[in-house]
């Protein structure tokens, strides 16, 4: 009986040893296959980031700290910024996907809460005639308006971004110059980041199967250009620049105005600074 038990144990050991060998071979194959992915993951890591110029040969992201300003008192709600952004960044031409948008706040006489809408509102889409064009409908014609203003919105490129915190694979990350980017080649499309953003700045691109959001036109600003929305704004309601440069438009904007940020209680420490917004704006 005991001998049988020992032989059974030996057989079990032999079998397990066989499995062990097979597992080693399989692990080696998997390791070889994943080496490419690991290299790709490492490519956006610290070591590469420490190079003198990154991400391009002419740009060093350690020398800048980008920031954005919005002067809501200047915005006229023309929505050129929204159209420019859609074209520049290949944003789907629907009423449900925006890297930037403009909100309209209207206080009517006798009402203590504002009426709020944006270009995506069905009434405004009906006025523009298509989901690819944006207009604010004249929906308060005849009503007594006590106060009204527009508020442009975009990604806040937070210092403590909740979206980066929750990304399970590290596909979204913060650059050294303060912008939050998404690696579309690595994003798995779980949309946890879309849920985590308190500002509603992220959307899911169904065709590409990945999350997307405003990058302050990173491909432009790293070449010394302005973000598309800033470029087209006819009234200068959007201000962009390098916070490390004391004489840049954004440094002057922050220094010369009493600015505020949206939802500071979240602890995200947003980097879009507002002037002229109301308590109802969040």
């Amino acid at each position, binding site marked *: 009986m005991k001998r049988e038990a020992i032989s059974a144990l030996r057989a079990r050991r*032999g079998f397990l040893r066989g499995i062990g060998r097979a597992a080693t071979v399989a692990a080696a194959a998997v390791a070889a296959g994943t080496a490419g*992915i690991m290299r790709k993951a490492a490519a956006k890591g610290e070591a590469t980031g420490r190079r003198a110029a990154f991400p391009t040969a002419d740009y060093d992201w350690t020398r800048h700290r980008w920031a954005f300003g919005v002067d809501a008192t200047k915005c006229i709600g023309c929505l050129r910024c929204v159209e420019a952004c859609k074209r520049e960044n290949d944003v789907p031409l629907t009423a449900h996907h925006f890297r930037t948008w403009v909100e309209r706040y209207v206080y009517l006489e006798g009402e203590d809460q504002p009426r709020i809408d944006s270009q995506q509102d069905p009434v405004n889409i009906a006025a523009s005639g298509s989901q690819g064009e944006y207009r604010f409908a004249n929906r308060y014609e005849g009503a007594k308006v006590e106060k009204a203003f527009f508020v442009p919105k975009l990604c806040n490129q937070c210092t403590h971004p909740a979206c980066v915190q929750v990304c399970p694979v590290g596909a979204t990350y913060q650059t050294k110059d303060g912008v939050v980017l998404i690696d579309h080649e690595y994003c*798995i499309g779980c949309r946890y980041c*879309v849920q985590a953003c308190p500002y509603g700045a992220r959307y899911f691109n169904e065709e590409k199967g990945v999350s997307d959001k405003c990058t302050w036109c990173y491909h432009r600003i790293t070449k010394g250009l302005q973000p598309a929305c800033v470029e087209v704004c006819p009234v200068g309601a959007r201000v962009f620049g390098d916070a490390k440069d004391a004489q840049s438009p954004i440094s002057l904007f922050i220094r010369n105005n009493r600015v505020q940020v949206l939802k500071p209680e979240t602890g995200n420490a947003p980097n879009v600074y507002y002037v002229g917004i109301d308590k109802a704006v969040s």
Partner: protein
Amino acid sequence: MEPLIHYAPYTGWVYPNETVIEWSIAIVVYPYITGLVAGAFTVSSLYQVFGFQRLKPVAHLALLTSLCFMLFVPLPLLLHLGHPERAFNNLLTPHWTSAMAMFGYFATFYIVLLMVETWFAFRPYVVEQAQNRKGLLGPVYRLLTLGSYDVSEEALRHDRKWIFWLAIAGIPGAHGLHGYVGFVFGSLKSREWWSSDLMPVVFLFSAIISGVALLIVLYVVSCWLRRIAIDLACLKGLAYTVWGFIMVALVLEGLEFANIVYKGREGVEMIIAYVYGPLLVPYFVLQFGVGAIFPLLLLSYMIWRGTTGKALIAGVALSACLVLLSVFMMRWNVVIGGQEIAKTGRGLLTYHLQFFGHEGLLVAIVLLLAPLATLFGLTRFFPPWHDKPA
């Protein structure tokens, strides 16, 4: 052709990007299944670790149930991902600050644990089949013995020791996996409806009651199918377990809601408008009233009156079905409900459930039935019964 975007109608003011509800019924099914896994494992552990002898008739069934449902846990997530082929990025380059990063490891660890425990639990049967079975299944059972044919008392004692320690490791494993699902929601500060410290425990206790309720239904149905008498002591044991845990679950869920209302932070008006409006039936009537309070009262009455026989079976089975509904509604109200309240705190959206499509109702039903079908097949292969059919 299924449209790519499912626009959600809304009232009030919502952010433009919120008009697509991103986490669908697939993400409702996911925590529901993991909850059933944790709950079923609890029943198995009550017998294996805590020595609840009266649960012996369902102990192995509970283990198989846990395994079958666990095998399908990743599926709703994979169906939901924009790039399911990149799912392994989660294991290869986990981003540790994410509440989701550990999922792959937790799930893998737990599936392996369940498989090993099942192997030990069914080893005597596998050895017997390997020695006697003819035909196609013979070699399969022989392979499953892993070369070990020793079923001496000493070897079985050794197996029982393994089962005991695996069951002990499985308790934090199963409950950690599920409490962790609660943390995925509770740790988000963007939504008042989700952002709660209680969320992981709320998920955990509702998971336990759902798993025990599932075991009750499976046990009653299996006895009926096998034409054998139901062990009333076992059924009562399961009923007591649901009865005890449902009270904790109710208190926790009630506390969570009370906290939101009492703290009354910004946006609470919208939440109140929502729960007394569109959520009235799913939340107060189905989740709390019909699904939790009614079964609690019914079970209390039966325990008080000492109900037995067919009335007990009918009452406990009915309570179990209602608890299963309640927990599904709880998942629905958390996942879908959270997204129907706009992040602006000034608007409400409406989720439209699609029937077809990879995140539609049909797929959700299949996802919930697939583990049961697998279990049906697996019980033929590894019979978990402790008695012989009549």
